[in-house]
């Protein structure tokens, strides 16, 4: 067991190191940030000074070495544009993104599962067909387009919801979040729904497929034969069986949501990490781009590591297989 965990840990460290090389060199190939930073009034000498100030005159491997040494001490570099530590910037933007992703995840489950359940139980009804057609729309519509439509309809035409931004925050359970205020809720509704669309469709389809498959299985047939009501069969037996995989799959989408929020955050001017990333890419704020990607890599590698270890505890075969290879 310990051997297994150590092995996996070493793999994880290797992956993080490899990604740091790829990301750092990859990001440093694009364009030249100095043209994005200096004032157009600057002459050649001013530009050379700025390049030296930001350490861009150093050879790339030296820049990488400096980055790596800093990273080992938890310093992922300093933003060219904001002059603050990149990690600090990212952490400052993180709560907004986490809260958006969380809200949209909950939304996906709360909206998706009941609809999917219905569509699975009555697959041939008109309502079910509409739900399924809608779920295809959920996959197909470009997020950015839907986002703007939301703003047009709900903020501009109807005036029900604020068009952009994040609402007031308050502290609840020790966390500062806009989910604790009414104003915050009115702000988060549209972006969260926009972000949730794909996952609502996913939840609908997973639930429907699960229900349809379960309804044909022996334990349901058996329960039917026993004379249990359909309601009881569905809500107690079927739902219990299909919930776990659905929640797992949707839950694993959490990481994707954080990444996907890039688009939603841009449209709704949501002050999260995704918007920070896009802004940093556009302005070539390399340290922030690198730091963001490293944080994401670390996050995903950690999730994978934990999943692996949990699996290996639950299912010894995984461990054995790994040892064999």
């Amino acid at each position, binding site marked *: 067991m310990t051997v297994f965990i150590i092995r996996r840990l070493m793999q994880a460290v290797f992956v993080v190191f490899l990604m740091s090389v790829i990301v750092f060199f990859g990001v440093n190939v694009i364009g030249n940030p100095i043209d994005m930073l200096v004032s157009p009034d600057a002459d050649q000498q001013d530009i050379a000074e700025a390049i030296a100030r930001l350490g861009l005159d150093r050879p790339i491997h030296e820049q990488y070495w400096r980055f790596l040494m800093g990273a080992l001490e938890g310093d992922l570099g300093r933003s060219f544009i904001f002059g603050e530590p990149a990690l600090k910037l990212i952490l400052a933007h993180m709560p907004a993104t986490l809260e958006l992703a969380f809200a949209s995840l909950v939304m996906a489950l709360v909206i998706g599962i009941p609809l999917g359940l219905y569509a699975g139980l009555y697959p041939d009804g008109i309502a079910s067909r509409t739900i399924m057609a809608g779920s295809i729309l959920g996959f*197909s519509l*470009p997020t*950015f387009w839907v986002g703007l439509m939301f703003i047009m309809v709900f903020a501009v035409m109807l005036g029900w919801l604020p068009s952009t931004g994040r609402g007031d925050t308050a502290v609840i359970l020790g966390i500062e979040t806009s989910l604790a205020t009414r104003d915050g809720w009115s702000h988060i509704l549209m972006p969260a729904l926009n972000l949730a669309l794909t996952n609502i469709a996913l939840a609908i389809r997973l639930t429907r497929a699960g229900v349809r498959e379960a309804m044909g299985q022996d334990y349901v047939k058996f329960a039917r034969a026993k004379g249990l009501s359909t309601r009881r069969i569905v809500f107690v037996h079927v739902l219990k069986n299909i919930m776990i995989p659905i929640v797992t799959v949707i839950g694993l989408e959490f990481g994707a949501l954080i*990444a996907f929020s890039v*688009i939603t955050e*841009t449209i709704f001017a949501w002050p999260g990490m995704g918007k920070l990333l896009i802004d940093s890419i556009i302005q070539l704020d390399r340290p922030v781009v690198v730091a963001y990607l490293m944080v994401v890599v670390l996050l995903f590698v950690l*999730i994978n590591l934990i999943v692996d270890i949990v699996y290996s505890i639950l299912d010894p075969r995984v461990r054995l297989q790994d040892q064999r290879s």
Partner: protein
Amino acid sequence: MSDLSSEGQPEEARAAVETPFRRFASEFFESKVATAALVLLSLIIALSLLAPWITPQNPYDLAQVDVLDGRLPPGSQAFAGYTMWLGSDGAGRDLFSAILYGLRISLAVGVTSGFIALLIGMGVGLIAAYAGGRVETVIMRVVDLQLSFPATLVALMLVAILGKGIDKIILALVVAQWAYYARTVRASALVERRKEYVEAAACLGLSHGRIVFRHILPNCLAPLIVVGTVQVASAIALEATLSFLGVGLPQTEPSLGVLIANGFEYMMSGRYWISVFPGLALLLTVVTINLVGDHLRDVLNPRLKR
């Protein structure tokens, strides 16, 4: 996994009664929605292929595009004499022409990247499943790692590094998508590999190649086709998203995504046609592909058969 009634039975046994294709086709056309979607999709593909012969303007030829024709509402007369039934965009491109040409690019990008990704993913997945052991571990680690990064993010970074252009977009989409195919193929190949008929084939002394390509692969095709359709649709949507974020295809030869992104600026100005019509074209394309793919999944999934 509980019903084994229809699985594990050699395909050839049933093929004697009716060809698998005919059976498949008759099942497919049972659904009116899927049939309609297929017809519509075929129409869209035909229109886009015939674009140079049916559009009044070549929107990529600067000599034929006039900025003085810019932003005309649907039904306006162009300077050159023809009617712009869907209006024109900001650069003076006839939208009907631009949409058909854009469709060509979007479809080409989606299908090409999907096909290349499928080939790579299929090869890698099969190798992993059949070779097993260390090879499989390494391959699947890479696949897992790749999959843990959302396709949007991977493509975004790649395009940012590679720059603009169709070839670069395709490359980015391939890199972003191959892992999905690899995972799918490996999963179903693993299931197939453990089945009796493969063991039987191995006992008969058939070569690895023959077992993989004649026995395992055909049985993995169903999920692969389903994943393929979904991936082509999502490749088209992803390209549109990249273009929206400003890192997609060049402006002068717009794909549907670029057309929508350009029209995005006009959303609040009442000039709905500039983004709504390309948006509808994209929507129709992606939705019909997904409808067809969705129904394929039902038809090809033996467990849902009654």
